[in-house]
């Protein structure tokens, strides 16, 4: 395809890539936390993101709340949902073979998506709160995406601060390094699992809430996000939390580049090829991570 690529176009790609990359990083951090702490890949991650998006949609359309202010509400709601899921279902398969936790969270995901289809219908819903873009030095900055970027950056920053500085955050990191040693140090590992699943669900919900402002939402929106979050983790290195940031930005950039040189239709194909290539060449991720 012969597109004359100008510096403006590259600048535009970088900006759009960074804007969506922050969202990828935030959602993927949630998946990475559960994987790091429990060795469980939560297939329902995308379904939880979808629920977060609907919280924002309903608070905006029924209660008229500013959709950006609903982000913490969506996160808090899904924190509770996450804790309940962990307590009632996921906790039972944490020590089981991988097959059990994959299938269990897959079943949860199917059930949640279908419940949403029944309750909310499969119609596309949109939160049209901010539209248009700012033009900065010849580059267009989509307004909803830019605001979502700021929120995603803020939430991700807070999450890292929490993990880095608070006692609970340190306990989470300790558990993800070695569950046995954490237990010996007096950490209540079952409680850490609850908090981790809650936190991860909240991060997914935050992503969903912000997505609701950017794109039209529907119950099946989450599947792609489970996959992309995992791709981000693989890019950054499994078990390496800062790696999720790098992976998210990288995925955002690659997708935007792909839509510049190919077509947006194929952006998922590009993401997929990226996953397969990384697994072939550097399975421990770009920053290096723990071997599983």
């Amino acid at each position, binding site marked *: 395809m012969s597109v004359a690529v100008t510096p403006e176009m590259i600048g535009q790609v970088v900006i759009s890539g960074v804007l969506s990359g922050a969202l990828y990083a935030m959602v993927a951090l949630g998946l990475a936390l559960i994987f790091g702490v429990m060795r469980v890949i939560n297939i329902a991650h995308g379904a939880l993101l979808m629920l977060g998006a609907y919280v924002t949609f309903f608070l905006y359309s029924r209660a008229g709340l500013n959709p950006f202010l609903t982000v913490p509400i969506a996160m808090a709601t899904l924190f509770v949902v996450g804790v309940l899921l962990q307590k009632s279902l996921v906790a039972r398969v944490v020590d089981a073979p991988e097959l059990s936790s994959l299938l269990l969270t897959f079943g949860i995901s199917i059930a949640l998506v279908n419940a949403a289809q029944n309750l909310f219908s499969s119609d596309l819903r949109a939160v049209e709160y901010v539209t248009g873009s700012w033009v900065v030095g010849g580059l267009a900055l989509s307004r909803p995406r830019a605001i979502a970027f700021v929120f995603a950056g803020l939430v991700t920053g807070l999450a890292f601060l929490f993990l880095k500085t608070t006692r609970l955050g340190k306990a989470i990191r300790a558990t993800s390094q070695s569950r046995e040693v954490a237990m010996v140090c007096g950490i209540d590992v079952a409680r850490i699992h609850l908090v981790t699943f809650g936190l991860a669900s909240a991060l997914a919900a935050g992503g969903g809430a912000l997505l609701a402002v950017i794109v039209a939402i529907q119950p099946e929106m989450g*599947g*792609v996000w489970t996959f992309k979050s995992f791709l981000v983790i693989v890019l950054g290195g499994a078990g390496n939390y800062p790696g999720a940031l790098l992976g998210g930005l990288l995925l955002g950039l690659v997708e935007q580049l792909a839509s510049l040189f190919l077509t947006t239709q194929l952006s998922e194909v590009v993401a997929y090829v990226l996953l397969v290539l990384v697994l072939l060449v550097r399975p421990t991720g770009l920053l290096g991570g723990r071997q599983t």
Partner: protein
Amino acid sequence: MSGPRGLIALSLAVLAVALALYPAVGTGYGVRAAVQMFMWVALAGSWNLISGLTGYVSFGHVAFFGVGAYAGAILVTSGGWPWPLAALAGGLAATLLAVLIGYPCLRLKGPYFAIAMLGLNEVLRALVSYFEGLTGGGNGLSLPTADATRPVYYVMGLLAVATTLGTYLIVTSRFGLRLMTIREDEIAAEAMGIDTFHHKLAAFLLSAAGPGIAGALMARDQGYIEPISVFPLAITVTMIVMVLFGGKGTVWGPVLGAVALFVIQELVWARYPYVHPLLFGAIIVAVVLLMPRGVLGLLQTRYRLPRTI
């Protein structure tokens, strides 16, 4: 061959004869339903080969069904191939796709394979829409009309038998034992000298061929395919539910699960299409938590049945 074994062999033979004669007496609806049932036996049995035996969960097995359907349909419409040959080619196409996915993803332990299969479906759907000239894109692809339901019945039936017989031969072989060793403890399997990668890959290729053939046969039978009809997540979900319900890693579990759930689906759930996937999700959760070895697993424990059923 005496006692219970002889009895089982006899009843299987009677069943085979009855099924072989059925199209001569059955109604159009009945034969079509039987084709569907054979298809589910073949699909569930195929999923069981990779996921039940090695423990590597395939969340995208419908991809092989869809690729087989498209390969078969394109060869029949554009290439003028006879459909039985096109069905074999559909199986081959699915196997080639399995090589592409399995080679990078099965070298690694852990969830990489599961996630790669989860994303595969979306990718294929995007590709089918992109290569519109070949696949008809969203408009789908119509095959030349032909009433092939009865011959398809026999071929699909053979496929179901081949899948089940193949599973029996694998489960009772050293190859099958090695696969199950990988499932129980991959590191130990490696330490015992098993080439885990090539064993997993072989199981995966075997598990892809059946769905590819089944897809091409369904394309012939229905005469029309489109991306949503051959790549729905629901087909993967149904395969998984059938195998889990019947008993994963067994020979007859997938058959039991496929027949039981298909009959229930036709009789009961067809009336409640909207909550049907919700039920399937709930069944997966319940089976994983409450009876991880499925119905057959329960029976095996209770009646001390051999492992190889």
